[in-house]
């Protein structure tokens, strides 16, 4: 291949790579500035950190784990709460949004009481993170 042809090929490769990079960056970071979105409710959770001992009570040691939550709710108000399986009145409110929210972030703390870390590992407690939106 002659030198001018190689130069043209190299320029083409450079241009393609730059365009691909720009497209990927635009997809990742460009915010939506307008338009209509369908009414939706979405809750995303990250990987939960392992339980760490954070204190103790008469019933045993207190272990705490954290998980990152991301909330999208087109209907306000939205409320993020946590608790085990059971009565809704026992739910602990974590964060509220009075306006529609897109990718709102909150850190959820999960708390468990067990005599030891080994006993905690043996248990299969299910934590439920609840997102309520829109109201009645």
């Amino acid at each position, binding site marked *: 291949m002659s*030198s001018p042809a*190689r*130069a043209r090929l*190299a*320029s083409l*490769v*450079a*241009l393609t*790579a*730059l365009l*691909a*990079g*720009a497209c*990927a*960056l635009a*997809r*990742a*970071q460009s915010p939506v500035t307008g338009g209509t979105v*369908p*009414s*939706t*409710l*979405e*809750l*995303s*959770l*990250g*990987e*939960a*950190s*392992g*339980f760490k001992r954070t204190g103790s009570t008469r019933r045993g040691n207190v272990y705490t*784990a954290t*998980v*990152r939550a*991301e909330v*999208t*709710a*087109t*209907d306000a108000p939205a409320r993020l709460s946590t608790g085990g399986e059971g*009565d*809704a*009145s026992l*739910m602990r409110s974590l964060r509220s949004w009075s306006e529609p929210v897109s990718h709102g972030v909150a850190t959820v703390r*999960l708390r468990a009481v067990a005599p030891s870390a080994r006993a*905690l*590992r043996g248990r*299969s*407690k*299910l*934590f*439920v*993170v*609840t*997102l*309520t*939106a*829109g*109201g*009645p």
Partner: protein
Amino acid sequence: MRLLDTWRLAILAMAIGLLAAGLGAGNALAARGGLAITPGILEHVARPGGVGSVKVANTTSGPMTVRLAVRPWTQRRGGAVAPNRRRTLDKVRPNRRAFALRAGASRTVRLSLARRPARGSLYGAIEVTGTPRRGGKNVKVAYRLVSSLRLFPLASARRYRAKPRRLFEHGSVRRGALLLAVKNAGNTIDPIGGRVRISGRGHLLKGVVSPTTILPGATVNLRLTRLRGTLPRGSYTVAARLTQAGRRVGGVKQRVRLR
């Protein structure tokens, strides 16, 4: 020399491209994914038959077990609303109550109303719980989404009515509030508000009662006014006019003793 520079530029551009692409993927993976429900509020006329559908999507990278229940709301005297997790609305029947969702999959659940509600309207919570099949490191976290189901009465069957109950003082004249317990005796969820006039002992206080959503059949304490020492202790005449959807729906004129 020029050719060498062009190749260097090409490699640099490729590196930038790869970095940018990686950044995009990193943002997408910032959250592990979750559970989504569309629409967030399902509205329909309360007529027997199909009342609409909701789409439940699993956006995580693992399979999930999904349960769906339609529950009645409960409302506290303070106005806070939560789904009643001990009961389900039998009149509203989803075509699937429990199902499995693969990673990235979605399913549409159709809801139907078995018979016309006695009040002519029905308001409930659509509760969708997603439990991942695989748990995390010692921690198993489930997702619960609570959206709203509003089955409105037919336009000709809409009833707007509020029943004032007890008028009482909460706290003291220095730091408190004058409250009126109001029952929504109609069949809509249009907020109930109004105007208040408090007179006596040479004082006159006029105010607006901020509109509050009260579920049909529920009773909520509406705050007529804050008490911050503006009125001295004594007996007063309280006249409140309640409005809903722009029409007068009830009222009260009563004497109350502030302490």
